[in-house]
Structures are given as C-alpha cells and as structure tokens.
C-alpha cells in the first residue's frame, strides 16, 4: 500500500529515532510511505473557535497536497493525527469553510475525499498485525509493555473513530503481534498534560506522574507511545521523579516503532535506543532480547 506521509515537526528534529524506525519498519511491512514535499506544521492544535478558519489553513494545505498526490495520508504523531483528521472532517462537511480556505490559499478545492490514517490504523487496515506476526524474527518474549495511548489519539471519538475511547485495543494487538505482553494499566488513556507543559509545569507534573506510577505499579518493563508530546512530558517528569523520589524505578519510554524494529530483526543500532532519555537496552538485555549494544 502506498501512502503520503506527514512526519510532523518533531520527527525531523528531536525524535529522529521515531522517524527512522518508521521508515525502516514500514519498508519491511510493504507500507510505502512517500513523504509530502515541503510539508509544514500541522497546526499543532485543532482550533475550537468556529468563526475563524485561520487555524485550519496549515492542515488544509497538507491535506490538499496529499490529495493531489492521489494518496491517503499517514501520520504518526498523535497531535498531528488529531488536527489533520479533524480538519479533514470539517472540510468534508462544511462547504463554506472549504471555499474560504481554498480561495485564501488559491488552491483547488478539496472536500475531504482522502483519508487521514494513523500508522497503526494503516497497519490494521491490511491485516498489518498478522503480517507483523509473520515477519517477526525476534519475538519480544516476556517483555512487559505498557501501551500509553494518551488522549489525542482517541478523542473526540466520534470524529476520530480510531478505537473505543474508553477501552482501546489497537496497541494491545500490536504488542501481541511482536510477541510481547501487554500490561493493562488504568492510566493508559489519561492525558499527559499536553501543551499545558508550556504554561504550567505543575499541572503536567501531576498528570504525568500518575501515568508513570500506574505503569510502574503494574511492573511494566517498557512504556510505548506514538506521540512525541506525550513522550516529552513523560520523560521530563521521569527525570524529576528520579531525582526526587528514590523509591521510583524509571521505566524506558519508547516509540512503538522502535520495538517493532527490534522484533522485525533489525540491528539494535538502527532502533535508535541511544536517543531515548532512559536507555532501554539494559532491560532488553536482561530479558535476553538483545546481545549487543552498549549499556
């Protein structure tokens, strides 16, 4: 399957390991991702003001371009996914906004004909989890993985239709397909604090701390996520917890494609573990899942 690919700002800067592991793994899984030419910011936040279309200009441009290429659009960052998918729905349903946007940008009118998919959805669409299971060379046996969904992937559920917002299972399916064990932890769909980290560290602290502790209580070896923002908030909070709370045992946080890369038998060096704030390699080594790599 061929898709247009929208990486989003962070994947080309702070989270190159995410981008690299997506590219290397999707190649194995026959998911062809063609990066959009000169893409720009997704808009970062879906605008909730109904009388202003300005916030939709940026996502509309990306969507319109992907449609010109004739492909459905795949993205991975939860925030990008949220903004792009909701914008796609808005322009499909609201002719007035659509006309306004295309006139403003002087482009052909686009009415939401293409689909916006998260990489996980793109996998699910074509029995991807079955294929992953088949192509898994190095099943991550005994590795307890806590899937952290966050909120932007799931809500608003009637618009995103990603999964059951209260009891999602797509990450669990993914974890199963790479041979690991999914840890059921109660805070897997709570908000990490999101953009509030810019204005109030204190509020994010509470939100992220409960997520980390809840995963830790359920004895997770690793937390996976698909969202650079969640990653940032959780990692930052973990740094603080390490300093302040001597009872807390830090848990490596990874992007799901990093584990996928390992399971598909790629070299440890290409999984990008060295860029994670907490190195996952010691725990992977102790489980006998890797033999090399400095740790």
């Amino acid at each position, binding site marked *: 399957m061929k898709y247009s690919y929208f990486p989003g700002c962070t994947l080309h800067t702070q989270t190159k390991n995410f981008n690299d592991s997506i590219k290397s793994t999707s190649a194995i899984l026959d998911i062809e991702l063609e990066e959009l030419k000169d893409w720009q910011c997704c808009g970062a936040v879906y605008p909730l003001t109904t009388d202003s279309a300005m916030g939709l200009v940026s996502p509309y441009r990306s969507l319109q371009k992907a449609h010109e290429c004739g492909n459905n659009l795949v993205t991975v960052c939860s925030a990008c996914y949220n903004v792009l998918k909701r914008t796609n729905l808005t322009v499909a349903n609201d002719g007035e906004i659509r006309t306004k946007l295309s006139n403003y940008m002087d482009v052909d009118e686009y009415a939401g004909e293409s689909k916006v998919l998260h990489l996980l959805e793109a996998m699910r669409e074509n029995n991807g989890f079955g294929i992953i299971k088949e192509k898994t060379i190095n099943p991550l046996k005994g590795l307890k993985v806590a899937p952290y969904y966050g909120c932007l992937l799931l809500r608003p*559920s*009637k618009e995103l239709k990603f999964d*059951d917002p*209260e*009891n999602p299972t797509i990450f669990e399916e993914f974890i199963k397909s790479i041979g690991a064990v999914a840890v059921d932890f*109660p805070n897997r769909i709570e908000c990490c604090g999101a953009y509030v980290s810019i204005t109030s560290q204190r509020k994010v602290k509470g939100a992220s701390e409960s997520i980390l502790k809840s995963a830790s*209580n359920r004895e997770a070896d690793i937390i996976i996520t698909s969202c650079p923002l969640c990653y940032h908030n959780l990692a930052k909070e973990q740094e603080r917890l390490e300093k302040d709370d001597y009872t807390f045992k830090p848990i490596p946080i990874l992007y799901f494609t990093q584990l996928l890369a390992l399971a598909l038998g790629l070299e440890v060096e290409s999984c990008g573990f060295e860029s994670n704030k907490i190195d996952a390699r010691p725990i992977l080594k102790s489980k006998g899942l890797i033999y090399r790599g400095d740790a």
Partner: protein
Amino acid sequence: MKKIGVFVCWCGLNISSTVDVGKASEELKNYPGVFYADDYKYLCSDPGQELIKKTIIDNKLEGIVVAACSPNMHESTFRAAAEAAGLNPYRVEITNIREQTSWVHSNKEDATIKAIQLIKATVEKVKKSEDLFPQQIPLTKKVLVIGGGISGMTVALEVAEAGYPVILVEKEPQIGGNMAKLSETFPTLDCASCILTPKTAEVGRHSNITLMTNSEVVESSGYFGNFTVKIKRKPTFVDWEKCIGCMLCQEKCPKKTNSDFEHGMGKRKAISVAFPQAIPYRPIINEKECIYFKTGKCKMCVKVCPVDCIEFEQLENIVEENIGAIVVASGYELLPKEKLSEYGQGKYADVIDGMQFERIASASGPTEGVIRRPSDGKIPQSIVFIQCAGSRDNQKDRPYCSKICCMYTAKHAMLYKHQVHDGTATVFYMDIRAGGKGYEEFVQRAIEDDHVLYLRGRVARVYEEDGKLVVLGVDTLSSEQVRIEADLVVLATAVIPSEKAKVLGQTLKVGTDAYGFFNEAHPKLRPVESMTKGVFLAGCAQAPRDIPETVSQATGAAAKVITMFSKNHLVSDPQVAKVNEKICVGCLQCEPICPYKAIEPETIEVRIGHTVEKRQVATINKGLCQGCGACSVACRSGAMNLSGFSNEQILEELKALCL
C-alpha cells in the same frame, strides 16, 4: 353549485393577532360558491357551535369550511355540530389557520393572504365532497396481552374482572417479569414478592385468563376488533398438565447451570423452576445444558418423576387465536455492562448492575438476602453506586433518563446500610430525580438517616488494584477529584426495551422510537394507544417507568380495552380507499404498497355486450384500511380513490392554490 358556508375562528388572540379574520371572512363572502361567511371569537364554544348549526339550517347549506385550529383538535366537534343540523359530517372541512398559519408567521398581512388562500382551497375541496357513512364491523371480545410482568398482569386482571376472556402470553416459563426479581420496592421498602405474588396467584387461577408462558407471538393479521394471531409455544419437555409440581426432578438433577433469572449471580438445575413462588409452578428443561440432550444418557428426572411427565420429544407448536384487541406490555431490560468500557466493560466480577444487586439483596436470591460480593463472597465494606450509567449519555446513544435509577439506587444504598451498619455507601449522581409521592423524602432518608454519601459528579474510570476496585470520579460541588477504594461497584445501567421489542413491533405493525420503545398515538392525550387501532401499550414497553406508574398506565390500557368491548360492534371511519372497478386493470401494484395489508385481488364478472367475462380487480378490506392513501398514489389507472380525500378534491384544492 353547492351552497357553502365559511366560518373563520379568532381563537381568541391565537389566530386574530396574526390573521385579519374580518378581512378573511369579508373576502370569502365574494368567493364563488360561498353563500355565507362570517368570523367568530370561539367557534368551538357552545354559542359558536350553535351559530354553525343555526346557519346550516337557516341557509340550507350543503357544505361548510371551518377555518380554525388543527383538525386533530376540533374536527370531530364541528362535524358533530353539522350532523346535529342535518348535514353529513363528511361535508365539513377544517382549514388549519392556527398551527399552520398564525403560530408560524409574524407578518400579519402575509399571514392573512395565506389564510385566505388556504380557505379558498378548502372551499374548492368541499364543493366536491360527498356524503359518507360509517360501516359497522363485528368485534371479537377477547384480548391478547403480550408480557406477563406487572403491567401485563394488571391489564389481564382488569379486563378479566370486567368479564372478558384474556390470553396472557409470556416468553419466560413463569409470569412476574422483572418485578419478580426485585428485593424490596421504593419508597416503602415492602418486599416485591409480597405485593407481586397475590397478583401472580390470581392470574394463575382466574377463570377468564388463559396463561401461555414460554410462548411468543410470531404472527399477527387482521384489523382492530378482528385480529388473528399465531402464538409459538416453545417446548418445556415436561407435560405440565400431568406434573404435580413436586420438584423431585429439580432436587435430583445432577447438572447445575447459570440462571437467567439470577442474572449471573446464582445457579439453577438443568430442570428447574426459576423461583419458589413461580406461577405456573412447573419445571422446564434447559435443552442446551441438559445432560440427556447432550449425551443421550442420564434421565435422572424420568427416574424420579412420580407421575411420568417428562417428555424429551416435545416439540414447539403454533396455536392460532382470534382476538379483538392487543395490549403490548413487553417490558424492559438493562443496557449490557459490556457497553460501558469506562466501568470495566464487564471485566470485573464485582462491578454489577442494579438487577444483579436486587438478586443478591433478595431473600429468595442466591445469597438468601445477605449482600455479598460475587467474586469471593465477602461482605463488602464499601460500595460505590454509579447512577446514569449509560442513561443521559449521548456517547452511548441513550440520551434519555431511565427514570427509576435515582430511586432504586437510594433503595440499594439503604438496604446495604441496614445490613452493614459500619459500611460506607457512596452514590455518584448527576441530578436526583425523585419526582413522585414520597420519593424525595425517601432519598432524604437515605442521606440523613442512613448516612449514604451522595457525591454530585461523574465517574471517569473503575479499575482493579490490589483486590479493590478503584473508582475515580469528581465531586463537582467541591470541585475535587475523588478516588474511592470500593469492594463492590453497582451501576444503575440504562433501561432499554426488551430485546425482542423491535421484531414484535414489526409483527404487530406498531412503530418504535429510535431506542426501540413503542410509540404512543399522542404523547399527552393518547398515551396508552398505539398508532395501530386496537393495539394498546402498557408499562416499560413504551418508556422507562416505575411500578406505580406502570400499574396506572396498565389500568388505563385495560380501561381502553373494556370501553372497546362494551359495544356490540365497532364503527369504522368511512374515509378509506375505494376501487372504481370499471377502470381498475387488476395490476395490483397497490397490493405490496399497502402498509396495512388491506388490499387483495378479487375476480369479478363483467358484461361486455352479450358476453360475461371474468376479470381481476383490487378490493379493499374496509376494516384494515387506515386511509393513508398510498394506494391511490400508486394506482396507474386512477381507479383507486380515497373517500374524503379523493383525487378530484385534492386537484381542486391545488388549482385554487396554484392557478
């Protein structure tokens, strides 16, 4: 040309403030065919009706138009007045200048023009109207009640007491419905069985009631006063006539299975009766669980039965009954917990629903009335009750209020506190809706005397941790997030219609709303009738409601049936379809279109010159026809016509409006 009178009603200020009624009647005076036109303040008043009568007689009018409110309101009033003056009532037509004109417009000038146009169109219609005469239809004075819960039983007993035969059909092997499963009832805390069993016993022994349990209505045809229904009697594998109810079979049966009656809280034997006071007190074999049906061996029940009444080879049979009226009392179910993923989606044994709590609190339940949690049988020290679990929730597509939950949750919390004095009961609520006699006082008693903690807010999540259920919620009055560790969580899940209600609705041709509750004919004025004549509604089949309300509505439905049966024959509306056999080509395109199955083919003999030929035409069953007019639209030759709304009349109306 006919002499037509026009009466324009002011309806106080309702019409006259937006429509210039004086101008309208003046203008109509000069309209061709109009012999008399006037306006009056309240035509529906006694003097107003007198005016109409007098005018008809004095002027020898041959048709009248009353421009007033909707024909739903006063058509019958004015038709009766005309009849009293010697005019055929079907020569009276109403122009709706209130709901369709004055109430929906604000510009007086335009509204007046519209009203005049509409009245003129109606005058044209009346010019073409004919005398119509109602027909008498025979009536079978026997009622079918579907559902043997408290509503169905109430209807059955009332009608039976009035002296008419009743057939009570219940899908379960015993009657009593959901009420039989309840422990105590609000707001008096009297035990549900104590007030229900006298009713069930009376239904069981009443000479006018034929009880058909373990049965379902599968087909219905005919029309009001004369229905024919087919009832499927499912096999019980026990000859209930022979059986003496000794229950030795139940005692000795080696196979235990889950009991539907206990809602997963308790077990029953493969051959058993659901509960000790069941009526009829006869056992039934669960075909899916019975060892004999699975392996061909066992037959323990056959060995112990003293009267030899076990019949493994029993088959289902269909019985046909002729009846005059149907009362639908098919009851309710609860939204499955599996739909509520935030509360564990049925994952945790100790998250139960209201009905399950009723069973563990019931003296005849699996714990003999001691409130124990299902997972390990411990007596819970802390219970959290979550109201509006699924109800009033657009996300769950159940935006309605289930009405009974506020009260039964207060009752549950109270029953628990009466047993476990040092336990804590916490209730999360959105609003407390305790409208009913003694209801608010009951809730206050729970809060003040029994110290039940009421927190206003929703619960975000329930999960298990270290053998406890952690409930995360919010108290919106203090704006605090709350975390409560509970031993048991009780969900007041949404009331939904019985699973088979939709299919039953299709069988009986009665409409249901978006959620599957049966639609009443009018939400305020005809709450116990359905849109299908002769089919009445009672209890939770129509909407969620509590026992007192159910009983009152059921009594109302029974009264409707008794009123219907008090006459020796029924009178049909003559405004039904009729076929012009001369031009009907017998194509029968109308037959599948008719929603009431009132059209059938008929062979008639026609004389052409000297020969007599046989020819097929459509014919109408005037009892079944409801006058919807669908056939007249579908008819290619124009042979089908609706009396009172003939093609000719409607065309004249359109001409007056558009040309």
